[in-house]
């Protein structure tokens, strides 16, 4: 770019349209690159700062309030040994990574089932006022029911159908239904009238209306719902595994507590938090891709 002497001329004077376009694109790319790099550095700085606050408070608690509480350094040491054997079994005991994978597998099943039910149900409820009036009370009653209640209920219901492991999955399924269902319904019912008229004027078939109008509009809402549901599922799995005593990261935390190894518990907390963060970021990235409100993708 440096030897391009025409660079400083006002646009369109010396450069052909095509070259001007190429130049603009290059500038835009350079600018984007710089901005991206700068913002990456900045956000890393913020992350470090917040980590420092957590560690500081933690250390302070250890030094003052509770001397039994494992210190950050002691926890780090234990965490490193746990992580080094994360995916192997020692004396038949699965490592922390395997425990986390077991939890994630359960979530994958429960969450997928719940999405498969909640999205179509949300579309129906959002699109049809009669269905909405019929189902709204049911949703509002069931939504605040705690996973701690769903789990024993499921145990009874699934006594002969896989018992404990089905109950954990069912608890995940039920508790992660609501955010997706409600957000999908809101997305569908918020379709601007203009788009509905367009679909009518051009006589869109039901299928085309769904595929080209309703679902693209509702998609960002659906993803927000899924993101919230995933957060709920991840919260609930830990509680459910504590109750079920099955393998999994929640069970691991509870088991470590019972064994008196609090450093292991803290390692489990960090793993739970880390995976939760990663899942959330994943959904956020997906959301950015489909958010048409923001204009160009």
């Amino acid at each position, binding site marked *: 770019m440096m030897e391009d002497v025409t660079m400083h001329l006002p646009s369109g004077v010396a450069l052909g349209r095509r070259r001007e376009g190429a130049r603009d694109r290059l500038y835009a790319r350079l600018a984007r690159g710089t901005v991206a790099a700068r913002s990456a550095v900045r956000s890393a700085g913020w992350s470090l700062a917040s980590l420092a606050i957590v560690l500081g408070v933690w250390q302070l608690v250890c030094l003052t309030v509770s001397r039994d509480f494992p210190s950050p350094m002691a926890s780090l040491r234990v965490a490193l040994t746990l992580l080094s054997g994360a995916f192997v079994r020692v004396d038949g005991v699965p490592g922390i990574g395997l425990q986390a994978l077991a939890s994630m597998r359960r979530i994958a099943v429960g969450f997928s089932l719940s999405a498969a039910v909640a999205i179509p149900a949300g579309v129906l409820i959002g699109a049809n006022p009669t269905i909405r009036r019929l189902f709204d009370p049911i949703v509002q009653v069931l939504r605040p029911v705690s996973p701690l209640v769903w789990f024993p209920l499921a145990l009874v219901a699934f006594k002969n159908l896989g018992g404990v492991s089905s109950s954990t999955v069912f608890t995940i399924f039920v508790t992660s239904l609501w955010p997706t269902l409600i957000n999908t319904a809101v997305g569908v019912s918020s379709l601007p009238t*203009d788009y509905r*008229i367009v679909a*009518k*004027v051009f006589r869109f078939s039901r299928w*085309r209306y769904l595929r080209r109008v309703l679902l*693209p509009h509702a998609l960002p809402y659906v993803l927000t719902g899924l993101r919230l549901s995933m957060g709920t599922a991840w919260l609930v799995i830990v509680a459910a595994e504590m109750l079920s005593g099955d393998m999994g990261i929640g069970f691991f935390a509870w088991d470590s507590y019972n064994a008196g190894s609090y450093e292991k518990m803290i390692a489990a907390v960090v793993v739970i938090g880390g995976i939760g963060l990663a899942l959330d970021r994943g959904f956020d990235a997906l959301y950015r891709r489909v958010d048409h409100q923001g*204009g*160009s993708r």
Partner: protein
Amino acid sequence: MTTFAPEREASVRTSGWTEPYVHIDGVSKAFRMGQETSVAVSDVSLRIRHGEFVAFIGHSGCGKSTVLNMVAGVYPPSAGIVRVDGKPVTGPGPDRAMVFQSYSLLPWLTVEENVFEAVDAVLANQMPMRDKRARAERFLRMVGLWEHRRKRPAEISGGMRQRTAIARAFAVQPEVLLLDEPFGALDALTKGTLHDELLALWRSDGRRQTILMVTHDIDEAVYLADRVVVMTDGPAATIREVIPVPLSRPREKRAVMHDPRTLDIKERLLSLLQGSPAENAH
């Protein structure tokens, strides 16, 4: 057309008409807002012949868009009836394509997809896919957007968005085109270009379409329309006067501008619009 009263039929003949294509007959519209009912449009009657371009002009809130929406079938009149080609309007349909001030393009589709989806939906089984693609291309080329076909509405200017919407409307070969302040959000230069593009598109189709346009721009109304319908101010707006624009087509902007008849018509429109107390309403 046997439903018309005889004396009306006679008056139609004396004004040199054949049968009306769009017939707005004693149409009123009241909207319910909570407890209150407000009458937006009261007793509007108009006969529009096939291939005619009629502009509705009036102050904002005078119910001109309400009339257009009833022709579109977006909502039914509270009283009276709208007929198109002798058949009562019961809902929206591709025989009456609409162009809105807000463009109403689907933001997640590209320019090309916006036009193609409409063509594909309206002409579902009437022609092979290849021909539908070609049709979308033809209309996009006519409005100079073929190069931009892969862009999304958010990536193009307001003028380009409205071109896309106009291309979409023409591409489904409607009998009637309903334009609701289509150029209201555009700057003067873009507006001028789009006027000519609209007339060119219409002409290229043999001026087959009957066009109803809502506007608040006097110059625009006179340049484009065969007749200008001046509405009274709302509530309960109705037709104040219908002014014919007897300028020959094809029209050329400068020639129209300097034509003494244009000046007379504009003078007349201006006095009709200023004579109403709307200025105080703002």
